[in-house]
Each structure stands twice: as C-alpha cells, then as structure tokens.
C-alpha cells in the first residue's frame, strides 16, 4: 500500500477546485469515501488522497460536467453505484474487453455489467501475455463476486503461480485471488498478473458511455 499520496490542500492548489466542489463531489459519491485518508502530521490531522486517482477523477469530472449534470456523472464515474441495468450485446465494442476478451465467455447477447467487468479483467491479463486458460480463471473469479463490482475500491484481483517439485514430479499451479489490498501470497508463490478492480470498473463504465 505504498501508494503515492497527496494532501488535500495540495489537491486544491494544483487543480484550482474549491472546498465547495470537493465536498459536493464527495456527497454525490463522485469521490469515494475510501480515498479520504486521514493521517497525523506535525500540524495535527490532515486528509490525504491517492495522488493519481484523485487527480484523474477531478480531471474526468471537469471534462464531463460540461455536457452532463453531476447526478448523471454518478453512474458513470462512481464505482460504488454500478449500472444494474446494463445489457450489452456486443462487448467487442468496448475497448477494455475487445475481441480477445469476448472469447473468454461466449454469450449470444445481453452481457451484464458484472460480466463485462469480469471480461475486462480477463482481457487485461491476456494483453499482458497471460494464457487464455489462466485469464479465464480471473473471469470466473470476478463474475462470481458481484459485491466487488459494486464496491471495487481497494480491491485487487490477481493470478498467482506456484511450482511444487516433489519426487521428480513437478506441478505448476495457477490460482486466482480476489481481496482487499494488501493482498499477500506465500513466499513460494509469485504474482503473475494483478488487476486494480477500481480502475477496471471505471474503464468499463467510461467505455459503456462511449457506446451508448
């Protein structure tokens, strides 16, 4: 969890947003509660944010709010309010899934939001060079975890690999793990692929918005 943090006052200074906007966006759920990290400093308690996430989010809100009201932005950006009603017939149109992602779970039509997120996780792994059978593990894992799709903040899906050599037989195991950061594997396992669920959910939402 050695994430790069930025103090609240530096966020305001760098982006030029006001306290009013920051609190309003938090109230609307556009900035998740989990990003507000309170820390003790020499001058007392201060609030910090994950630097990259908050700066990206503020940029997104600003560029999108020209065309849409804040309330309309919530389902697009806020990861804790997943679009329950999404039915997508052709996921290859969504960049995070693409043609390779679709192959991981074939359906004629009507992919749900959770399924799209699961496919995006699989595609993410495929694009990093993971074998399809392993990427499929991720898809099945995420598909079965609806609550993660609704509240993905701080959650990681990963593929771990472990080799076992015993009496001349060598087995290589790949496992899928889904959990809150920090996710730990035992020392003999290595992480093959890692997916930040919050980012994936957001990418799928933005892609859906482009298609709609």
């Amino acid at each position, binding site marked *: 969890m050695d994430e790069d943090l930025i103090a609240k*006052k530096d966020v305001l200074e760098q982006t030029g947003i*006001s306290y009013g906007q920051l*609190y309003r966006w938090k*109230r609307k759920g556009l900035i998740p509660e989990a990003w507000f990290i309170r820390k003790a400093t020499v001058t007392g308690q201060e609030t910090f944010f994950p630097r990259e996430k908050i700066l990206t989010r503020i940029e997104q809100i600003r560029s999108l709010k020209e065309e849409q009201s804040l309330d309309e932005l919530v389902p697009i950006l806020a990861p804790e309010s997943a679009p329950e009603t999404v039915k997508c017939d052709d996921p290859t149109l969504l960049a995070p899934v693409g043609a390779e992602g679709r192959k991981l779970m074939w359906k004629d039509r009507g992919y749900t939001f959770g399924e799209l997120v699961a496919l995006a996780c699989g595609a993410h792994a495929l694009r990093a060079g993971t074998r399809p059978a392993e990427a499929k593990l991720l898809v099945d894992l995420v598909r079965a975890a609806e609550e993660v799709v609704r509240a993905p903040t701080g959650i990681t899906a990963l593929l771990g690999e472990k080799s076992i050599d015993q009496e001349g037989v060598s087995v290589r195991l790949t496992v899928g793990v889904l959990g809150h950061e920090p996710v730990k594997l035992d020392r003999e396992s290595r992480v093959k692929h890692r997916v930040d669920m919050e980012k994936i959910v957001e990418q799928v939402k933005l892609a859906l918005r482009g298609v709609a």
Partner: protein
Amino acid sequence: MEGQNISISGSGRVSGGEYGQVRISGSGKVDGDVTAQEIRVSGSGRFQGEVKAKEITVSGAGKFTARVEADVLVTSGSCGIDGDAEVKELRSSGAQRIGGSFRGHYVRVSGVLHVARDLETDVFTSSGRFEIGGLLSADRVEVKLVGDSRAREIGGENIDIRASSGLSFGFSLARGFRFGLGIGTLTVGEIEGDRVHLEATTADVVRGKTVHIGPGCRVGRVEYTESLEVHPEAEVGERIKR
C-alpha cells in the same frame, strides 16, 4: 400500489407491509419493513424494520430501529432513528436523534439534532442545537447559535456561524456569558469552506479562501488563501497564508 390505511389509536401492533397511511395516536408497534405514503405518530410509535415513506411526521414519540428513507421528515416531538436516514428534507423543531449517518438535501434544525456519524446535505440551517459525531457537509451551512453545538468536522462552500443576539446590542461575549444571555457556542475540530464566517466558535483548524473570525472565537490555526479578518475579541493561534 397504494395499500390500505392503518390507524392505531389505543394500543396495538401491526405487521409491516405496504400501506397508504399509518397513523399512531395511541401506542403502536409495527413489526417488519414498512412502505407507506404517509406516517404520522402523535402518540408513541415503534417501528421495527426498515421504513420507506413519502412523509413522516412525529409529534409524539417515534422510534425507528432500522434505516429510514423519506422525502420529508418533520419532528416536533421526539424521534429516534437507530440506523441511517436518507431524508430529502428534515425539519426538526423537537428532538431528533440519528444513530447512523444522514443524507439529504435540506435540513432545518430549530430543536435539537444528534447525528452519530456524518450528516450530508445541500443546505443546513440551524437555530437550535446540534451534535454531529462525524462530518457535517453542505453547500450552505447557516447557523444561529443557541446552546452548545458540536461537530467533528464541517466542510462546504459557505459556512456562516453567528452568535445569537446580545452582540449586536453592544455586549461583549464575556459579559454575555456572565449574564447568561443564552449565547450559544460551537465546538468543532476542523472547518473547511470557501467562505467562512465564524462567531463564538472553538476550532482546532479553520481552512478557507476568505475567512472571517468573529468575536468569541478560539481557533488554533487558520489557513487561508485569499483573505483573513480577525475580530479583536477572538483568539487565533497560527495564521498561515497559502
């Protein structure tokens, strides 16, 4: 969709469900989740289960043991909600207690309001007493202090805290206290807003664009970006311009 009406005027118990009106003027208990157009409690009512209603009026004693969702909640008696409350408009001239957090658009307090966790609304106005265990977040916070109020944090665009009468008649705060003029105070850990005007407020930290620290304030540190005014009858530790 519209269910039947129920009215308890003696002592009674009904089970949850979908109703038009629920009126309790005696002593009533509702077991299970309730959805209703209107709920009126003028006697003593206890709701055990989640409650969803367009309008809830409590002029007697209302007790809700779980989450409450409503467009309007008006309390002139005593109303306790053990869970979270999602209420668009809350007007409390009685005693309102919320054991979880509150989300809404408009809050008006002229009685007493206790919220154990965060209170989030667009507009918060008070001429009563409030205690917020977490963050009070609103675009507009307008408070006329009566009695002693507290919040862990206040954040928003405009934050305007005024001491009640006395000051305008030329009394100093210290004398006001001595003569017991009923001047209220506010105690907060942290206040952050774009325009902040404070009176009779004790805070560890105040951050804002334009900050006015009025009479009777005790502030550990002020951080401001545009302007800071401090009344001679206020104490401010550090002043930091960013």
